[in-house]
């Protein structure tokens, strides 16, 4: 089913958590809400589920207003970040819960509920765990049960809050692929929250990047990756190196940096900021270069270089280890960015107060 959010705001006391969200989601779409900690992702999801209400704005599903409905009436499948399984029920009863609370007139006979549970257990590949309690499961298994519990009610809208947040990298990757399969098999419109861009890009049809209560960009993963619409999105999708440049006739110029690989741009002359991925910077030893290698760290496949510029600014570059055998610390080098985004230099205060945190250091709200 389709979902349409318009001009939605939500305030907690003084803090504006959502500042005018406009979002349309089509039937059967798989959409990721991507954003740093505290950007309002969970708040938006909870409003869609009916666990919270906005101060202003509208929420319509299939053209019908949803703000007048209770969470009970909406019956969205909501998967909580920490699963929120019922600890006193066995896995099978957890999954059956949504069917057993239906009003007597709509409730399927118990044999039918049992069959549905069995079907889901099989689908989730946890047949053997049916008679365990949640405390006897691993994180990944709990995740599957939580998803099964939400899918059991055949929701028209599936909402997942950081579904893989608490799992290790390998399990995350497996479950990601598996969730994509679940989505394709069930055809349910799905929205999931994540702060991990790799997860969002790999899984979603469309990615919604949120920053400080606003939608910064909506688009196909490749589109966002290649053409971030703002400095905020650029930083968030990993263009973490920022270099001050001067625009001159559509070309960026900066002392000591070879910027000829970048295409011309229709931008006014004047100061601007170049955003780069560390891996998009080619580093070449050159006695004339005004950057110096301060530190070289190997991460196995990659070499991570710390470079110091003429005015003492430090930047980071990454490259395959094979490619630059002859580099040493203290050596002068020339930089040649091979791709990057340029945005007009904005006054500092215009930019979001909190820079995007590294996913690994994401703070957990308790």
């Amino acid at each position, binding site marked *: 089913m389709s979902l349409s959010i318009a001009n939605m705001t939500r305030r907690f006391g003084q803090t504006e958590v959502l500042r005018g969200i406009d979002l349309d989601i089509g039937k059967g779409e798989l959409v990721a809400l991507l954003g740093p900690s505290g950007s309002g992702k969970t708040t938006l999801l909870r409003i869609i*589920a*009916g*666990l919270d209400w906005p101060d202003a704005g509208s929420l319509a599903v299939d053209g019908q207003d949803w703000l007048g409905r*209770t*969470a*009970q009436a*909406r*019956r*969205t*499948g*909501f998967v*909580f970040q*920490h699963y*929120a*399984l*019922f*600890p*006193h*029920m066995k896995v099978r009863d957890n999954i059956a*819960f*949504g069917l057993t*609370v*239906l009003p007597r007139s709509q409730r399927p006979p118990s044999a039918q509920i049992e069959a549905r549970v069995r079907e889901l257990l099989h689908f989730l590949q946890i047949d053997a765990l049916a008679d365990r309690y949640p405390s006897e499961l691993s994180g990944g298994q709990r995740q599957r049960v939580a998803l099964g*519990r*939400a899918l059991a*009610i055949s929701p028209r809208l599936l909402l997942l809050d950081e579904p893989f947040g608490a799992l290790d990298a390998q399990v995350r990757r497996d479950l990601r692929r598996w969730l994509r399969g679940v989505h394709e098999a069930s055809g349910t419109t799905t929205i999931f929250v994540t702060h991990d861009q790799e997860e969002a890009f790999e899984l979603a049809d469309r990615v919604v990047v949120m920053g400080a209560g606003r939608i910064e960009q909506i688009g196909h993963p490749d589109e966002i990756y290649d053409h971030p619409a703002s400095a905020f999105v650029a930083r968030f999708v990993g263009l973490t190196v920022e270099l001050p440049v001067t625009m001159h006739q559509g070309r960026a110029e900066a002392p000591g940096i070879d910027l000829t690989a970048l295409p011309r741009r229709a931008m006014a002359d004047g100061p601007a900021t170049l955003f780069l991925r560390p891996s998009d910077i080619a580093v070449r030893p050159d006695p004339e270069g005004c950057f110096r290698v301060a530190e070289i760290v190997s991460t196995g496949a990659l070499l991570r270089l710390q470079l110091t510029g003429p005015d003492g600014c430090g930047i980071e570059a990454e490259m395959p280890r094979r490619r630059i055998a002859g580099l040493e610390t203290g050596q002068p080098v020339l930089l040649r960015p091979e791709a990057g985004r340029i945005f007009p230099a904005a006054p500092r205060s215009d930019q979001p107060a909190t820079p995007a945190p590294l996913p690994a250091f994401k703070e957990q709200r308790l």
Partner: protein
Amino acid sequence: MRPAAAPGALAPRPDQRVAKALIAAAVLLTIAVLVVPLAYIFHRAFAQGFQVFAANILEPNTLHAIALTALVALLTVPVNIAFGIAAAWAIARFRFRGRKALLTLIEIPFSISPIIAGICYLLLYGRQGLLGSWLLAHDIQILFALPGIVMVTMFVTSPFVLREVLPLMQAQGSEQEQAAVTLGASGWQVFRRVTLPNIRWALLYGAVLCTARAVGEFGGVSVVSGSIRGQTNTLPLQIELLFNDLNIAGAFAAASTLTVIALVVMVLKTAMEARR
């Protein structure tokens, strides 16, 4: 293969003399203040044989006191369970003005001597009291009757269930309940199927503590009941009365009954703690 050593067998051994002395002191103290008096109650109750004991228990006034005490507990405990759950739910799940004040208010019975509660009721509902003439005019008897006894007992025991249930509900948070709601459960279904099973042991534990206190309450009840033999005397009051009458065997027989109730409750409580 060598048998595995007991856990901690390799840890350095501290000097055990002090520990042993402290344990001995604790054991002696426990025997002196707890075990001997308890054993003595039963010894005295049965000192003149079972016949005398049975006769003492079956004495109409004592029998009535036992029944009255049971009735008071039966009325008090369910009300306190309902109140405790409702208050814990409100405090744990909602943010409202006066929440802190409510929490403090509920603690008051813990800190106020029960006899003060009794006197307050006396001043409020007594013949000369604030509501006295109105009650008299409508022929409602609160003091020196069952309602007064039940009300004072409720006052004294009101925090027990809440105090047990609240920390659990706060720790558990509301996510499970929210999950249940998004799955289509109604408010009552959420309570019945998600909230209640999670707090059931704490709830039972609180109810047991509440029962023990309700059965043993003396101070507050002694003020409002008027200690009318065979009418408003609860078991603790009856024991005191028998004692003052110098009916030592009767007093000990009644006391042993009360003690048995308390011990049963304690065993229940211990069993429940093990399950939590």
